[in-house]
């Protein structure tokens, strides 16, 4: 069975290559900062399970220090000029889309065909990790397709990958760091404290008020925690179950489902959901870190109100 550890080994090697190429990049004034940052990520992937908890903690401090003290620059690997790209685009035409579209095709193949595949009772892919495994497989195949079809230099996947990685920069590690912060919040019982605050101070005698508090609470709590999954157990244990379902007799499926989607409205509005909201701004080279969030708020807020109405109408049929 192929497990997630294979993806980690591959990631480790790729980040190690980014680190080495960064160190050799004379055009980047902060090249050793980049080398250290991506090097630490490589160590995490290759040896994270052997470092111990304290070792991993120190590694995270290292990442935060490199990023926090502004030691991270932007690599300048030799690449094609805008004019050359225009000419290449003319020459290759629609062939250029093939490697990029190989990714979704292989991911779909992995999830739909390889995931259920068994040999003598053993799964080919770890069924719980089929998506990341398929994505890694797709990434490798697509690189091969691109190199053959477009005849680019053999080193170009690593150099161009490093260029994009530096474009994302420290933001690349933020989602993982926030997930770790979520674990600390859980350990300290932060969710419970907030849930108690909400249920203690807001009267919920009327059904509509209770629905509104639950939905808005899911969104608000998700904004604070960055993750609807963290908000759901707290808000549902505090309001959803005792009040909406038990006191007012609401349909649990409707309450839970629309409650979670109210949380997703919150996800659209928080910088703490970094992989959805901040990483894209970096990837698209937008000067305003919050540009994507600002475009999402006018959809998220009315949708949140729609959710309140939907739950009120559908849960108590």
């Amino acid at each position, binding site marked *: 069975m192929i497990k997630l550890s294979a993806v980690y080994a591959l990631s480790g090697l790729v980040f190690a290559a980014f680190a080495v190429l960064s160190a050799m990049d004379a055009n980047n004034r902060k090249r050793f900062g980049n080398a250290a940052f991506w090097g630490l990520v490589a160590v995490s992937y290759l040896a994270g399970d052997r470092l111990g908890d304290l070792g991993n903690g120190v590694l995270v401090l290292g*990442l935060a220090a490199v990023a926090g003290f502004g030691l991270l620059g932007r690599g300048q690997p030799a690449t094609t000029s805008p004019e050359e790209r225009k000419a290449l*685009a003319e020459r290759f035409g629609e062939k250029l889309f093939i490697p990029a579209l190989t990714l979704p095709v292989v991911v779909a193949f992995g999830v739909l065909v390889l995931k259920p595949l068994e040999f003598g009772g053993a799964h080919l892919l770890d069924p719980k990790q089929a998506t990341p495994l398929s994505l890694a497989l797709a990434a490798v195949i697509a690189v091969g397709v691109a190199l053959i079809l477009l005849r680019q230099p053999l080193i170009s996947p690593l150099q161009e990958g490093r260029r994009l990685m530096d474009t994302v920069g420290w933001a690349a590690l933020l989602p993982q760091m926030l997930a770790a912060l979520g674990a600390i*919040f859980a350990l300290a019982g932060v969710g419970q404290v907030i849930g108690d605050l909400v249920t203690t101070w807001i009267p919920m005698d009327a059904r509509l008020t209770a629905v509104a508090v639950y939905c808005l609470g899911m969104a608000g709590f998700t904004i604070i925690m960055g993750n609807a999954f963290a908000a759901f157990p707290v808000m549902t244990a505090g309001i959803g179950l005792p009040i909406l379902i038990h006191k007012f007799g609401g349909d649990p499926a409707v309450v839970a489902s629309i409650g979670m989607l109210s949380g997703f409205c919150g996800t659209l509005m928080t910088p703490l959901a970094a992989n959805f909201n901040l990483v894209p701004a970096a990837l698209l080279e937008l000067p305003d870190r919050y540009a994507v969030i600002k475009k999402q708020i006018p959809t998220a807020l009315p949708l949140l109100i729609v959710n309140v109405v939907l739950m009120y109408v559908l849960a108590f049929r």
Partner: protein
Amino acid sequence: MLTLLGVATVVVGFAVRLNPLLVVTIAAFVTGLAAGLTPVEVLEAFGKAFNENRFVTAAYLVLPVIGVVERAGLQERARSLIGRFKGVSVGPFLIGYLAFRQLTSALGLTSIAGHAQSVRPMVAPMAEGAVEARTGELSDQTRQDTRAMASATDNIGLFFGEDIFIAIGSILLMVGFLATSGIAIEPLHLSMWAIPTALAAFVLHAGRLLLFDRKLRRSAGA
């Protein structure tokens, strides 16, 4: 109550735009210490959770291939390709992408598109190209607005499609949570009740995309 200091640290740190990695690390210590842990215990818990969440960052494995096709001119091609379809305006184009993202996510194919693998190399350049074909050279502000809108559309399509699929993480979480509270529920029921919100999200965001389109055309005409 003291544990909420960590949340406050995050809010203030992000608001004043300190480096978020530093903010998150400080918040972890503030929260842990307020909860009575020693600094070493906080560091251990933080490191352990970081290590367990490595799959989050492994998604960047798609960057090498995206970089290679960009080197060979994919963005330029995507931009000029859309310009050849004179009838396609940015609003309907992004509405089409929204529908694609919602429908495929509803089938469980959440990872076949995304910001790194489709928005940056294809969707954003095509959206820019669609605007360019009608209004000529883009101002920096319009370019940034169009890109941000493309990313926002990807997120909205993903979020309000994935919950219709019965084996997605959030559905499993809900089933598990309700089961421990003594309520047995079929995943199918949860995913069915995600459909009304999904439709509302489509209508709302599609409407906004049409308004966005019209605003760009007006400002170009003026």
